[in-house]
């Protein structure tokens, strides 16, 4: 069993195909169902940001982008979808936090982590840039200034 497991590990590492967007439906803050595949299938660039109210680097990143978001949207028509992975303990904090911080993002709720699990996301924050249903860029973790690099990716793909 152990050896087979190792074999599969090696095999995994040798793979490098882009993954697809899973067919998951999440609720927005108005309790309406939103299909992730439909959202991703757009000619405009979508940034999916997985976050939680208790994750300090996630808040840092979304705060940093909020400062320049208007500019980004004017220039590239990009949209950021902030997917809260908060569970029942902290979910109640999502609406007041988003409004209190004056974020203009589309917010979706993944409270039992169906989408997070389907995409094999283990660490927050997690950024995924999508165009026409294809994932063009991903990043795990946030360090200050990473949003500038993210915007370079958005601009590059907006031109295509």
């Amino acid at each position, binding site marked *: *069993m*152990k050896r*087979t*497991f190792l*074999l*599969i590990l090696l*095999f*995994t*590492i040798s*793979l*490098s*195909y*882009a*993954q*697809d967007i*899973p*067919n998951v439906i999440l609720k927005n803050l*108005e*309790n309406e169902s939103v299909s992730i595949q439909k959202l991703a299938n757009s000619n405009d660039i979508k940034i999916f940001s997985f976050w*939680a109210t*208790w*994750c*300090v680097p996630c808040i*840092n990143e979304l*705060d940093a982008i909020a*400062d320049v978001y208007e500019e980004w949207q004017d220039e590239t028509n990009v949209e950021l979808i902030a997917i809260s992975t908060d*569970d*029942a*303990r*902290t*979910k*109640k*904090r999502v*609406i*007041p*936090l*988003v*409004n*209190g*911080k*004056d974020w203009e993002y589309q917010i979706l709720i993944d*409270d*039992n*982590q*169906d989408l997070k*699990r*389907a*995409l*094999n996301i*283990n*660490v927050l924050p997690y950024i995924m840039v999508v165009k026409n249903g294809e994932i063009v*860029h*991903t*990043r*795990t*973790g946030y*360090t*200050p*200034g990473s949003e500038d*690099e993210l915007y370079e990716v958005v601009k590059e793909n907006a031109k295509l």
Partner: protein
Amino acid sequence: MRKLILLLIFCLSLNQASAQLLDNLRLGLESNMAWYNDDKRTGAFFDEENNDGDEHVRVNSYLKLDYDFLKNFTATVQIESYEPLALLNYSPNFEGTNFGIYSLNYKSNKLEASAGHYYEQFGSGMILRNWEDRQLGLNNALLGGRMKYMPLDFLALTALYGKQRVGFETADSDIFGFNTELDLSNIFNFENSSLNLGFSYVGRNETADSEDPNFDDLTNAFSGRIDFTEGNFYANAEYVTKTDDVAVIAGQLIDNFVNPGNALLLNTGFSQKGFGIDATFRRLENMGFYSEREKTGNVFLENNINFTPALTKQHDYLLTNIFVYQAQSQVVFADPQLMEAGEIGGQVDLFYNIKKGTSLGGKYGTKLAFNASYWAGLKGDYDYNNLSYDVDYFGFGEKYFSDISLEIRKKWNKKVNSIFYYVNQYYNQRTIEDNFSGEQIKTNIVVGETIYKFGRIGQSVRLEFQKLWSNSDNHDWIGGTFEYNVSPRLSFYVNDIYNSGMDSSTSENHYYNFGGSYNKGTTRFSLNYGRQRAGLVCVGGVCRFVPEATGLSASLLMSF
């Protein structure tokens, strides 16, 4: 073994197939390694759960494959490996290498069907929640079948049956569930408001060992929910009731101590641009609900059917996580001085954004977050000798915990950001930890954090200072972190916390850690060396105790 080879052949043949086919495959790999060392100050390495002092190097690995096919189908397999033994303080039930999760799912607009393992949640989870958290060593998926049917726009029905996963086995009981979600705003065409109702049933059927027990094999739980939103205002309520269930004290079923349970959760909030407020009240009475009765309150968080997390703010700094509240949902009759039947309390959150251009807001605005929570035991008469209690519905008994915190975030200019954090806590060690000689600890904690960006894109340093004062001679902590981010991909950190108080287990030990991490796309590798304080590790609302340990750890995450 044969299954594995088949799987491998399946994967390899996929490799040969067209890229189109491979587009439908998602892979996730997580591997966490630890090399435990003997420590001159805190003693030699020893794993009490497995009674082992030899296996210093351990690796927990998870490989998950999801394959989408024929438009509506997804097959999922998760292989898990804990070799040669699981990391410290994981349940000994996680042993060896095996299939952890396997499932086949069908999904169309109106119908969803799953066979194999699945994760489900009804309402907020107070009646049922199955989920996975690898850091906590928690996976309580159900193994069986589930159907979701949405016959109309406003109606969703779920029916499920399963046995709960415990380690690589399943619990010795059957779980049945049924759920209805009704969207009334869709029926009545409300324009600006929404009204949702929910009803659930969860049954646990576990055959009792004793001959003529005072409780039924089948325990039933029912829940009703209402959710209302109008413009900037929202309110919701959830009530759960559980039929007669036997009390479990120190792993023993107490046959002449049988009571029903119930839970009430109320939540309301209001928010607008730049301002948000939220208030929650919850009362739990005898709401421990496990797929095997005698596992009630087990430290590995196994066999949990429902989810009753502590409703307090989850702090993110080392010293703010020394005294962590855990929800007291169960009946505890440990001693005539230590009797509990549940908890009552609540919390309030406030978020406020001081506008740009005002004197307090400055050029970039100032962001405030405030939280206060208070939790107590249920007020009433407890009779230790006759094993009974009679509690008031809205009475507050002995205080268990309180926490007041304020966070101020300030951007000074394009290069410098700061966070200031203040926490005041009350922690009733005796009741929260069921520790007879526990203290009543009051603390004040301050944290200051500054980030300075310089040079090329993504280069920055982060400095963090922490201090904890308490009324107890045992706890007087100080701590700090220095982090250097070389680029968005590479960063290094070092941190240390130190207790100059007299607490016998932590006094005058440096709990230091240093390490780094490298990210590229969906791959992340991190390396860390240090001494871990014994205490609670908390992730997303649940905490688990981990022992003191010193050593090297590494982690690899990948997904394709």
